[in-house]
């Protein structure tokens, strides 16, 4: 059995070697590499290099729009980055992250769409014209606030619970949000959903020049811009006092408390920040689609959110982004296998976890921990 451990070790080593070599480069080379990467991200929807067009999802018959798929990928990357704060940085298992995503989506839907019962009620109350609705930027703000508040409200009673209990309680929270959105039809229209959700350019319309209905490239560029901003923001956070506190709490809560780090406070922060990021993702999702209904916010999707963080490499933003990208991209690109794609997806998930339990691109710290654990397992022959 020790062979299987050794078999994966070189992989870890190779990945780390690439990472180390990258970090060893002079700063200007790294900056150049980074700029080139960002430029590539912006170029991606136009991808026309012969040979590489194979990667486009509209390359196949019955495939989906390439820019549209990239947009969805970017949204999921945003979700992964937010959830990574909760799972990867603070070490809290949140299975109900979809709830915050839903709150973000409903934030812009309920206040921004002329079809929403909330907007209609406000129109009636204040004698506003039937075309009036809250502007997109304000909706974004409302949605983020709502998501953060709900993050705190959920975290307050539950964050004192231990890991596995937290998992089921958060899963329940996600379900409660979905069921409320479905059942309180007088506020949310229930399963009939809300249409005509605005984007940055106002309500969806054929006359929109930038954020239109058919050409989705601008939407992708908007989303990837949000992703880059959030990556920068979370990176700063990770290396700040808050980030170090999360690390301490994740590694050993009691020790952290003794050293004067209040675990509860920092966990709550992680929840609120993660929730806000999920909310942003929800807003963009709802805006591009211009329509939402509660069916999208099901527990299975929520669990898949966690899957993309763990498969990608919990704690490493590059890793979780890759996880999110693959989760959306693979089923879209391989539509050819139609009915079998989720079977293949499940098999892939199991294989990745067995062969690379640390994730595709693990965080350096996590990979080390894992090596230690594996070594411990080897040292204790009684287990075998």
């Amino acid at each position, binding site marked *: *059995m020790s062979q*299987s*451990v050794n078999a*994966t070790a070189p992989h870890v080593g190779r990945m780390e070697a690439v990472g180390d070599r990258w970090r060893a480069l002079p700063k200007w080379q790294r900056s150049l590499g980074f700029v080139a990467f960002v430029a590539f991200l912006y170029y991606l929807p136009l991808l026309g290099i012969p040979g590489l067009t194979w990667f486009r999802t509209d390359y196949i018959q019955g495939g989906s729009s390439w820019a549209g798929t990239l947009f969805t990928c970017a949204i999921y990357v945003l979700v992964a980055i937010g959830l990574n704060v909760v*799972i990867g940085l603070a070490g809290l*298992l949140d299975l109900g992250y979809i709830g915050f995503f839903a709150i973000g989506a409903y934030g812009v839907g309920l206040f921004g769409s002329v079809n929403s019962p909330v907007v209609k009620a406000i129109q009636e109350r204040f004698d506003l014209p039937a075309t009036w609705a809250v502007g997109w930027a304000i909706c974004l703000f409302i949605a983020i606030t709502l998501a953060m508040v709900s993050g705190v409200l959920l975290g307050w*009673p*539950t964050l*004192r*619970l*231990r*890991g*596995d*209990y937290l*998992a*089921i*309680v958060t*899963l*329940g*929270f996600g*379900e*409660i949000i979905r*069921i*409320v959105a*479905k*059942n309180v039809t007088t506020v949310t229209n229930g399963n009939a959903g809300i249409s005509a959700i605005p984007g940055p350019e106002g309500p969806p319309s054929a006359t929109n020049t930038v954020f239109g209905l058919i050409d989705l490239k601008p939407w992708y560029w908007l989303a990837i811009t949000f992703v880059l901003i959030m990556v920068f923001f979370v990176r700063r956070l990770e290396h700040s006092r808050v980030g170090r506190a999360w690390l301490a709490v994740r590694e050993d809560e009691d020790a952290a408390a003794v050293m004067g780090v209040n675990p509860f406070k920092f966990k709550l922060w992680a929840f609120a920040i993660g929730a806000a990021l999920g909310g942003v993702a929800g807003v963009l999702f709802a805006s591009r689609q211009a329509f939402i209904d509660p069916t999208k916010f099901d*527990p*299975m999707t929520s*669990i*898949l959110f*966690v*899957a993309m963080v*763990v*498969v990608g490499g*919990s704690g490493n933003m590059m890793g979780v982004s890759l996880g999110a990208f693959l989760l959306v991209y693979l089923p879209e690109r391989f539509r050819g296998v139609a*009915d*079998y794609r*989720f*079977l293949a*997806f*499940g*098999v*892939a*998930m*199991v294989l990745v*976890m*067995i062969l690379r*339990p640390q994730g595709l691109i693990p965080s350096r710290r996590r990979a080390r*921990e*894992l090596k230690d*654990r*594996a070594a*411990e*397992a080897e040292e*204790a022959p*009684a*287990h*075998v």
Partner: protein
Amino acid sequence: MNFDELIGQFGQHTVNGLSKGAIYALIALGYTLVYGVLRLINFAHSEVFMVGTFAVFGTWTAMGLQNNPPLGTAIIALVVGLIVGAVASGGTALAIERVAYRPLRKKNAPPLVFLITAIGVSLVLVEVFGVLLPKLFGDSGFTMSTLFSRPRQLLGMPTVLEHKNLFTIGDTSVTNVQAIVFVSAMLMMFALDRFINKTRYGRGVRAVAQNPETAALMGVNQERVIMLIFVLGGAMAGAAALLWNMRFGVTQNTIGFVLGLKAFTAAVLGGIGNLRGALVGGLFLGLVEVYGATLFSSQWEDVIAFVVLVVVLMFRPTGLLGESLGRARA
């Protein structure tokens, strides 16, 4: 709010809730056994149950069972179904342990990795029963192929036992099926409890649950214990699958997810890792759901269940009975 209905028919709702909760409890045992020993949430357990419903249905199809058969045939169908269901589910659980969990245990992977692997396994099983088997056997013409003739759709099976009123006290009537579900679930849980608490094997399980290293030093074969708990938990799910088929007579490749979620909730409610907790949690959840659905509307059933879970955990952070397979752990 419909208090009159709840109070007026309180006995009946209690009976309904208990027979609903008994099935939750049986499935919850699988979560609790695995958690008690390995400290991991076996998310694929819901699919172990699903496989059981298919196995039992397959057995009945092979027997050529018709609606409301004579009593003798019904008893044979139930007994054979129980055996096949328990073997199929136990075998599935064991296979999952071997293929997915064991390699991870060798690497001492963190719990989250087990969770995601389990989700992957779940997805695979659901898709195998929803797509792969129908593609392979859907129109092969065997008797059994009716199981897979309508991929992903709800499948109905014959009613084995006609539902009849067994006895009535006041306004409360108990049907034969409800009684069988409840009593047999209790019996199986009692047997399992005795097994864990009184036998040599059970002592091994408790020892590993309490302290794996010491147990190993004392000569307990940890791998055998782990195999044992997966088989036991799976067999209980198989038994639950039989009771489910007998009571409801339908299955589907996705039948496990919601039920598994509820059973896991029940396990946590009672105190995960605690066998009696699974029983208490299951029955409690069944009652809460039926009372809640009566009081409000069935569409709020899950919300009520989860709110009750949060409230219980706020006051008792390790569930109603606390978590321990042997004794309390810090």
